[in-house]
């Protein structure tokens, strides 16, 4: 029994690392640019397809394709912020919500047309490998994904807290007007935040590829998790999103273990609705808006 629980917790933590990459992206955009990016999951999907085609066409290992997907999606993020998001920033919610929602709809259905609904997988030498210790089972691909995800999250935290640009981003997140008065160029900061968030989504895609199938709707799974994690954690708080994501991973994994294989989503929704009912401002407090 204890072993089963421990195994479920390990599985949950490992996938929770991926959830964290997506959630941190959502929370970074929300914190700095003050919009919710409904299309965040679709960028995970794009990262997966990029890795898939780099692996099948050029024989590039999905983990190494990280060095392609992250810069590519960073560039995409900067462009999207500059040409689309920048035009709808302001006090009105409607255009912001429906612009990123339309983007999500667009990317998802373009993927459906280009790649069809088929599941795509990449088999690597380490896809089936696993470590065994104390009766527990740790798949190598998931362990690598978790470690890299944690390293990237840590790197982002260091970037936000030590570099001038990172500090400017945190300043803009706290008070946009005052930050602008202090000589921070908000458009540049927003572009970097959006780019960094998409680069994390791209990284999540590459890290998933050795053990997860790519299909057009794959991003929806991760973005739902991310939204719940971002509500649960403090909005705009990187550490909060990270911790909440790991919790979500464990809760989902325990749900699958003890309630049933298809109960993962029900656990997620239950957690979201419970959070809304009991602590609508999230565990970190603060007001949504």
């Amino acid at each position: 029994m204890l072993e089963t629980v421990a195994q479920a917790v390990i599985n949950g933590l490992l996938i929770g690392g991926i959830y964290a990459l997506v959630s941190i992206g959502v929370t970074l955009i929300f914190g700095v640019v003050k919009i919710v990016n409904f299309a965040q999951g679709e960028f995970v999907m794009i990262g997966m397809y990029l890795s898939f085609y780099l692996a099948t066409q050029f024989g590039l290992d999905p983990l190494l394709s990280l060095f392609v997907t992250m810069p590519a999606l960073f560039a995409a993020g900067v462009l999207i912020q500059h040409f689309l998001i920048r035009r709808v920033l302001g006090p009105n919610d409607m255009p912001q919500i429906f612009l990123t929602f339309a983007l999500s709809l667009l990317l998802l259905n373009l993927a459906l047309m280009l790649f069809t609904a088929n599941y795509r997988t990449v088999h690597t030498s380490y896809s089936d490998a696993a470590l065994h210790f104390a009766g527990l089972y740790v798949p190598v691909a998931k362990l690598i994904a978790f470690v890299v995800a944690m390293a990237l999250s840590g790197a982002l935290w260091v970037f936000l807290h030590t570099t001038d640009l990172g500090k400017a981003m945190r300043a803009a997140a706290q008070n946009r007007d005052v930050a602008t008065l202090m000589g921070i160029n908000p458009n540049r900061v927003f572009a970097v935040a959006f780019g960094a968030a998409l680069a994390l989504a791209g990284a999540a895609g590459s890290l998933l590829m050795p053990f997860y199938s790519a299909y057009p709707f794959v991003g929806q799974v991760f973005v739902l998790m991310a939204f719940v994690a971002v509500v649960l954690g403090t909005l705009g708080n990187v550490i909060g999103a990270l911790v909440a994501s790991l919790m979500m991973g464990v809760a989902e994994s325990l749900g699958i273990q003890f309630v049933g294989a298809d109960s993962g989503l029900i656990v997620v929704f239950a957690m979201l609705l419970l959070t809304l009912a009991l602590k609508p401002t999230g565990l970190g407090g603060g007001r949504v808006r």
Partner: protein
Amino acid sequence: MARSSLWKIAALALLVAVTMALPLVVTNAFALDIFIRILLFSLVGVAWNLMGGYAKQLSLGHAAFFGLGAYTSTIMQVDFDISPWIGMVAGGVVAALASLPIGWLCFRLRGPYFTIATIATAQALMLIFLKFRDLAWGAEGTTIPNLGSAPLMLQFETKASYYYVVLGLLALALLITWRIERSWIGYYLVAIGEDEDAAEAVGVNAPRIKRDVYMISAFLTALAGTFYVQYIYFIDPATAFNFNISIEAALVSIVGGIGTLWGPVIGTVLLETTSALLQSWLGSSTGGVQLTVYALMLMAIILWRPAGLMGFVNDIWRRHLRRRPARA
């Protein structure tokens, strides 16, 4: 001023005459099917617009009420032999009652997080109907027994009859919206949509207004749900709680003109006509294409015409009226 309202009455009379006469002129089943879809999604859009348009509570979970309406009437008909006409009203009541706890949860959040919460509640309802087979046939769904021509059971042999039923429902929804728009509730809703805190500060009881109008919106959406499953003779959770219904409800309103009486209708005419044209050009494999085109239209409207097509029409109308006295 009097002249302008005279024009409006004339235009409305013409519209009524044309929509009433349409099935007499057009007898092609494919064309009638498109007209019925236009009226049906106009109805859903008008219902969404009450909450989403006037009060800017941007829900993407109206499929919850659509599905509850559809399931209530179907369960009553298949298990208890009760006419879907009664089931339709019962479904509306069930949806309106369900909107109370759903609203209690979702209205705690604002802006994008309200939207996410509405998506989650609709998806959760779909999962409940998928998981619990004893409640209502599970994932397989059920076909609705075809009784041939049975007007009392909301079943007809001609598409034209279905057309008139949904036309009547749409007229009801438009009438309710018109009355609300003209009343103090309408002004309160717009005030909440503009700035909820400011509205509360000047004495608008925002939670109560939102709760009441959400109930009306849910009721009207449920009527559409019952009509839809009666029209296609089939129900399953993926049909009744389809996320695309939530999307289309919001989309037609935004494209047509958010917070306007006729916006959702105009938006639906545009979107459904586009979708029908795409279907006839490209054949049946248009799932991805249709939503791709919808997404592009939505982005174009948001970036260049945030007031929607109605805003565009109103601009022209006003320019036209302003020029007129100058000439006289």
